[in-house]
């Protein structure tokens, strides 16, 4: 195998595409998933805003979302993707299924992080006359912050691997590169380099997440 300098630029370009897809879909899924997770917790029985109906509906939708295999979601929502961003291919087209798939995941991860907040602290805030909104933004989210960061780190790692899958159906990024060059053109070196970059990327994300979570924790 001969090392081709063009491989390098291919890799860099693919890495940027992956980072772009993962970054944007992580941000968007957090934007929708965090409020959903918070709502799921506070509407639970014996929490600050119990509402069995809403709680159960959210729970069912989230479970349904999580039980659809990503590869099926990818093709199933093509019409929706086209409607939303005008295309179903390329990095932009891949971001829609990635975000949609990650929202329920984020919601569950947020739920478990927020359930970790000590009930006594929430009750103290109630005893001080805090509103539901004040409890959410001043107690639940700050107290759960390090758990939230760890949860979003897991989400980001999953998004990296899902983005590779999205790449396989024309989404660009490292997965696309591996399939197009490594598999279809028998370029073992590119395949190997891609895998290597993915491993390093995931390690990097995890370390960054762990470091941030540790910094945010004052327990």
């Amino acid at each position, binding site marked *: 195998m001969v090392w081709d300098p063009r491989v390098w630029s291919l890799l860099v370009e693919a890495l940027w595409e992956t980072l772009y897809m993962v970054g944007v879909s992580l941000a968007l899924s957090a934007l929708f998933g965090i409020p959903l997770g918070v709502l799921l917790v506070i509407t639970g029985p014996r929490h600050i805003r119990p509402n069995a109906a809403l709680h159960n509906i959210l729970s069912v939708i989230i479970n349904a979302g999580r039980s659809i295999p990503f590869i099926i979601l990818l093709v199933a929502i093509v019409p929706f993707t086209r409607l939303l961003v005008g295309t179903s291919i390329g990095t932009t087209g891949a971001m829609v299924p990635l975000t949609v798939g990650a929202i329920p995941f984020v919601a569950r991860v947020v739920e478990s992080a927020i359930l970790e907040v*000590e009930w*006594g*602290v929430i*009750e*103290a*805030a*109630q*005893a*001080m*006359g*805090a*509103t539901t909104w*004040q409890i959410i933004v*001043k*107690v639940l989210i*700050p*107290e759960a*912050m390090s758990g939230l960061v760890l949860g979003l780190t897991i989400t980001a790692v999953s998004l990296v691997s899902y983005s590779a899958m999205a790449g396989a159906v024309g989404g660009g990024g490292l997965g696309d590169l591996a399939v197009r060059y490594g598999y279809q053109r028998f370029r073992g070196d590119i395949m190997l380099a891609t895998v290597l970059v993915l491993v390093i990327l995931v390690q990097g994300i995890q370390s960054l997440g762990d470091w941030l979570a540790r910094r*945010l924790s*004052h*327990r």
Partner: protein
Amino acid sequence: MAETMIRLSNVTKIYGHGDGQVVALRDVSLEVKKGEIFGIIGLSGAGKSTLIRCINRLEVPQRGTIEIGGRDITKLNGRELREARRGIGMIFQHFNLLSSRTVFGNVAFPLEVAGVDRAELRKRVKELVDLVGLSDKLYAYPSQLSGGQKQRVGIARALANRPGVLLCDEATSALDPETTKSILNLLRDVNRRLELTIVLITHEMNVIKEICDTVAVIENGQIVENGPVVEVFANPRTSTARRFIKGVLHTEIPEEIRQRKLIVHREGCVGKTVRISFIGQSAGEPVISSLIRRFDVDVNIIYANLDLIKETPFGSLIVEIVGPDDNVEGSLQYLADQGLKIEVLNGVGPTGLESAG
């Protein structure tokens, strides 16, 4: 008589329903005066936490009314309740501080909730942290503080919005005796300085003895005894109260003193062992010396015990009074007339006086 700050009338709280139903409070009525420290004591599961949590409606009772400053808290809507809660501070056994905030941030929390502006907030937080003696820990996180320091933060936080009432749910139960003492002193201090009404619950009679003016004993969800602490200590009516008191006042008479026989020292002379119990000013020595002068008897002090209930001296003295029969009887009558509670531990005492059991 001071005015009433908190009045509970026929409060009943039931947890669960059907077979698993627990009646945590049964028809509880009580009254807390403005500016007093009101202690509620009871064994585990008696309903103490439920009772104190009903006062700021962290628990909603099924029946009864709870008035604070004349306002029935059970009838308030959401906004009114939040408003009312800002006037009721609360501290907790496990402190319940926000681990994500520093001391400053924790004390600032209730002020933020109440919408106090930044400048006023900073000033107020500094004052409060100063009041509880933690100025050097202003930017420490709760995880860097000891239990006693955490509770000081809890107290500063509870006082932030200048409440008229402070509720203490086992505030010292997680602390060692030394720290407990300092926290109780702080509570007594803020009670006086801020004219704060304090309701505290505890399972330690020691806490009641140190700082409370009034005590209520709760058992199986009912108030079984209620009154000024010195009175309840002097005349406990229920066995529960007696058990609690026994733990903190060493009023038990040593066995060898109990066993002393009526001694005939010489012809016509008798020696009686007498326990004199006293509360407050009518204490000790002047009575004894005037007894000796008036009745020409010898008084041997056998055993003495003095304690303080809040600031009131409380204790007992066991003496042997030796002298002619009539003089001894006369001295006993004299002691009784002084308002002292006396008990003859050997022989038979004057009529109407309790004999040692």
